């Protein structure tokens, strides 16, 4: 399991980098939101990974066998909540992007010099 352990951590960090890079480097707003999703997914992976137990199974008891080895349910609960938070942020962000498109006519480069000082 050693290899798997390090591997998950590697992927966590790499995904984090990829998502974070998209958030910072891309001007396109939809792309930024996608980057944000990837960024958050990386964190989900971190949490889920830490709760697994070797030889264990999902924390849903089968056939009243409470003595089996189970993975930790708590990180899973946290991530369920975090996923929901993520989709909520995405929906709100997309709504803002739609409004920006409608009033600026573009969804990139919104920091360009403003021509509407006296709008």
């Amino acid at each position: 399991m050693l290899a798997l352990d390090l591997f998950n951590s590697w992927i966590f960090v790499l995904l984090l980098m990829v998502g974070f890079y998209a958030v910072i480097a891309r001007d396109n707003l939809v792309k930024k939101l996608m980057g944000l999703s990837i960024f958050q997914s990386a964190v989900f992976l971190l949490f889920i990974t830490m709760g697994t137990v070797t030889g264990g199974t999902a924390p849903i008891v089968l056939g009243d066998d409470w003595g089996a080895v189970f993975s930790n349910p708590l990180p899973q609960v946290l991530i369920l909540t975090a996923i929901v938070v993520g989709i909520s942020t995405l929906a709100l962000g997309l709504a803002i992007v739609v409004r920006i498109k409608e009033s600026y006519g573009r969804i990139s480069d919104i920091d360009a010099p403003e021509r509407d000082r006296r709008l």
Partner: protein
Amino acid sequence: MNLEPHLPALQVVVPLLTAPLVVLLRDARLAWWAALAASAMNFAVAVAITGQVLDGAVVRYDMGGWAAPLGIELRVDALSTILLLVVSGASTLALLGGRASLLEQVGEARQPLFMAAWLLALAGLVGILVSGDAFNIFVFMEISSLATYILVAGGPDRRALPATFKYLVAGTVGATFYLIGVGMVFMMTGTLNIADMELRLATVGDTNIVYVAAGFITIGLALKAAIFPLHAWMPNAYTWAPHVVTAFIAACATKVALYVLLRMDFFVFQKNLVDHELQFAFVLMPLAAMGILFGSIAAVFEPNLKRILAFSSLAQIGYILLGASLVTVAGFNASVLHLFNHALAKGALFLAVVCLGLRYRHLDLADLQGAGRHMPWTLTAFALAGLSLIGVPGTAGFVSKWALIIAALERGALGVALVVLIVVSSLLAVVYVARIVERLWFGEPPGENPAVSEAPWPTLAVTWLAVGANFWFGLNASLPGELAQRAGEAFLRHLP
């Protein structure tokens, strides 16, 4: 039945559950009344909790009847109380005085949704303050953030939209950083309860990952608290939000993030991480100093009234952080006091801006020239609140700045340098406040003189109430002083 033991839960639940009801309303006036009622009740609960805390109790509550750390614990101490008063008070005052302005800027049809978002922002902020669970804080942070994005996006200018988007990205990245940090601590301790974390970190505190976790938590929250240089989202968000919203969030949103930062850094990590002070001495203190200078200087050169105040907030956040980063009880006290007093001053100033916004469409100083002749009451209120911002003796702003100077002087040569910094930036504050007041009182009105009259009395009355609070707490600082002192005592117990 006796509600007293349930106060911490009620603090959050009342606005949290009023919000869905408000969504269903169709009438703008009714929505406003409902929001005002919930907010006022929230303030009343905060006052009642303050009473309990002043009696010497740390108010605890086990959600769902599951004892911590198994369940989620609510925990209210002096530090949370002082901010509970600020948040619920600011919300109530802003709502009370802001009805006319909100109708004008947001429109009537969307009022119920807007009021629901307001209540959710309030619920989220108080939810963070009463929570004793690191993950629960994340959840309520997201509630308050999402709701605040909605409030900011309600601004009538189209520039509110990109400002909100930036705020959303910065806020989400900040919250995710915080979550990474909490995840790492959770990995090492197996708990999410803040008090339990501190205990269990004792055995693993000296591992790299805990240092990394502390770093992530600090950076994430610094982003949300708009600490220099992570403040890029803040000036635009404050400027283009509806005026009433600015009055509310400028007094609360960043301070609550700062509160979480203090809570985590001092009440979880300080005891367990060797040399944790270095993070303050070498990172946060220089940043605070730079933020103070940068914010003050930027405020001096800004043409737009709201942006001036936004940059001044950046400087004030610097003061709060500066006090805390001394890592002494006196510094912590000063920091907590300034959290309270700056909210008073900024709240009053932005309420005066609400008054101006009701009569002027653009808030560049050039547009507002000569406003004082038409709106003398508003301008007088603004000038008096400005005195508190500067820190003139007799105002609330003076009390905390003085405390900060005393705390800094405990630190010898470094302290003297910091005092010089504080004095310089206070002088800069004199410059930008005086510049506003001068242009607004004595400037020639631009172009043809529109028939401008004094702001309507409800808004004006609330503004004066806030200004009065600045002087009340300037002359009689016993309540915030007492709470800050208790917070300092708690802080002392968490030093290594």
